[in-house]
């Protein structure tokens, strides 16, 4: 009997016993649902972490020199904390030293910031993140302007009180107004709004638009960090190779600037997008290690259920087997019939599982901030698993069916 014939027969058998078939494939369905949903969510998280978290917070081919990591990699012990707090802060001299000596082409910007700086506009008051930065910071972060302009070199050099605001700041302090050339007061000094950044949206539910940028030399910098201190020295390179080279050079020159001995560890930290992804990488690796086990368990259970259903089917349909044998079915025809039936059943479970898995992933995507992205390979794996489980579960019942004596089988009720 040709394969498609066997599949058609199997589909018909499944169709006439819808409920029974559904229950028998539920194990495979759950296993595959789980596989698809988890892979989709993890995959979505990966992309989210890459695009929004790492590249959004740090940026592609970008790194920053800091006292210690801003995005800490999981649990930090008390000892580590104490060591971090003992480290010297990055200062102007070091920043200048690095920027002047690193030969890989890169652009630099020093920043100082305060995450909850009180600001006001007329009667409106609130706290926002205020960040003092060199003029290249806009290029490093690839900020796009919705209105106005960034600092001119003169404004930056002279430290004039001008300000570029994030979208949420515009919304809060200049509702329904054009904020350009209006003022925002920080530490009692009015800052003239010269630009508004494009809306960047949220990360894990936190707005990325609740901040404003002033020139590094602006008066408010004194309230943001101590004299001579730089919170972060940002750098952006032209590509991945340049990035690696620049990070290596930066580390080398920071060590020279700080006169570290070869056996002394770095007492500063160079943060990159990959580094920030470290924790997430560990989590997703664990998930991908555990996932096969969980999927395997439900598929084994699903396979055993299908095997039982097939054994029942063989004994219920003994007479049918007898008839088929009398009419000329060979052992392998009967074998193929039942194996294909089990495989079809299991594949139907896998297909339903793919659908429910996808639905689940999209429901998670719609109802939670967790993103979901379907991994095409997981669908391929699911289908392959479905077929494999079915064939494996079908072989034993099918071989029992194929070995039935036609005379005995024909007498069965």
């Amino acid at each position, binding site marked *: 009997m040709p394969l498609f014939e066997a599949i058609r027969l199997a589909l*018909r058998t499944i169709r006439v016993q819808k409920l029974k078939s559904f229950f028998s494939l539920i194990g495979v369905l759950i296993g595959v649902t789980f596989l698809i949903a988890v892979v989709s969510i993890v995959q979505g998280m990966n992309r989210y972490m890459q695009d929004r978290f790492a590249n959004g917070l740090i940026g592609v081919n970008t790194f920053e020199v800091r006292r210690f990591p801003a995005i800490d990699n999981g649990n930090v012990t008390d000892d580590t904390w104490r060591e971090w707090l003992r480290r010297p802060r990055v200062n102007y001299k070091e920043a200048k030293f690095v920027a002047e000596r690193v030969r890989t082409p890169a652009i630099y910007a020093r920043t100082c910031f305060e995450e909850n700086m009180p600001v006001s506009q007329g009667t409106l008051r609130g706290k926002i993140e205020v960040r003092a930065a060199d003029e290249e910071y806009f290029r490093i972060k690839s900020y796009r302007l919705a209105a106005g302009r960034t600092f001119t070199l003169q404004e930056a050099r002279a430290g004039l009180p001008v300000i570029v605001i994030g979208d949420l700041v515009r919304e809060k302090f200049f509702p329904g107004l054009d904020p350009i050339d209006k003022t925002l007061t920080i530490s009692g000094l009015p800052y003239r709004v010269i630009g508004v950044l494009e809306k960047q949206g949220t990360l894990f539910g936190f707005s990325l638009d609740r901040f404003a940028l002033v020139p590094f030399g602006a008066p408010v910098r004194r309230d943001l960090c101590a004299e001579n201190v730089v919170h972060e020295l940002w750098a952006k390179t032209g590509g991945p190779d340049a990035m690696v080279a620049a990070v290596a050079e930066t580390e080398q020159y920071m060590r020279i600037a700080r006169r570290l001995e070869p056996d002394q560890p770095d007492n500063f930290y160079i943060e990159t997008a990959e580094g920030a992804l470290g924790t997430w990488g560990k989590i997703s690796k664990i998930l991908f290690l555990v996932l096969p086990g969980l999927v395997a368990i439900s598929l084994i259970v699903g396979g055993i259920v299908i095997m039982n259903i097939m054994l029942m089917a063989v004994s219920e349909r003994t007479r049918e087997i007898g008839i088929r044998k009398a009419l000329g079915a060979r052992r392998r025809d009967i074998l193929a019939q039942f194996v294909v039936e089990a495989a079809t059943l299991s594949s139907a479970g896998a297909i339903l599982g793919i659908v429910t898995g996808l639905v689940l992933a999209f429901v998670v995507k719609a109802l939670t901030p967790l993103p979901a992205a379907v991994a095409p390979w997981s669908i391929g794996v699911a289908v392959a698993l479905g077929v494999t489980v079915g064939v494996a579960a079908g072989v034993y019942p099918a071989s029992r069916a194929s070995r039935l004596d036609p005379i005995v089988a024909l007498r069965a009720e």
Partner: protein
Amino acid sequence: MSEPIIRIRDLTRRYEMGGETIHALRGVSLDIQRNEYVAIMGPSGSGKSTMMNLVGCLDTPSSGEYWLNGQEVSRLSDNALARVRNREIGFVFQTFNLLPRATALHNVELPLVYAGVPTKTRREQAARALTQVGLAERMGHKPNELSGGQRQRVAIARALVNRPSILLADEPTGNLDSVTSEEIMRVFGELHATGQTVVMVTHEPDIAACAARVVTLRDGRIESDRSTRGQAA
């Protein structure tokens, strides 16, 4: 006379049952010619079911020879026997033995499926066979939507669809009322008239009387082998 379609020599069949040997057939020799209409009769325990299974290649003999359409089939493998059943034998059973969930057409197609006939040809041949037994209007019906007589006609169509060497019927009227029985026997008569070899196992004398030759078994041996020709039917 040409080569007989069935040539049986000293056929025996023993079963082991609970440490006891049962001699179902104790040496049967029989020739059946092409286009013969033979009834095999006998009381229960006479060995006629065993005979039917052996002639139908569902079973193999303990000893002896069985030539079917020029081929010695008594020592064939399982697969080879399946092929012989598919090509050479058309079964008609007492309990019809149709697949309950399949339509009449699909039931008739079944032997062709195992013969590897392509779908389209198969449909046409099955439809032709059903038309031949007068069920052209009932092809899409399932067995439970058909009367007993109609079911047996479907079974006959199925038996004929592969153009077998012999039509082998086992108590074909056993589950039918007398009117329907006559109707079915008329079908067998017509098939015989068109050249079909028919072998029928029955214990009913009036059914056997429709055949041209009656072989009676008793205790695993042929008791009598006589022609009914010339006698009043």
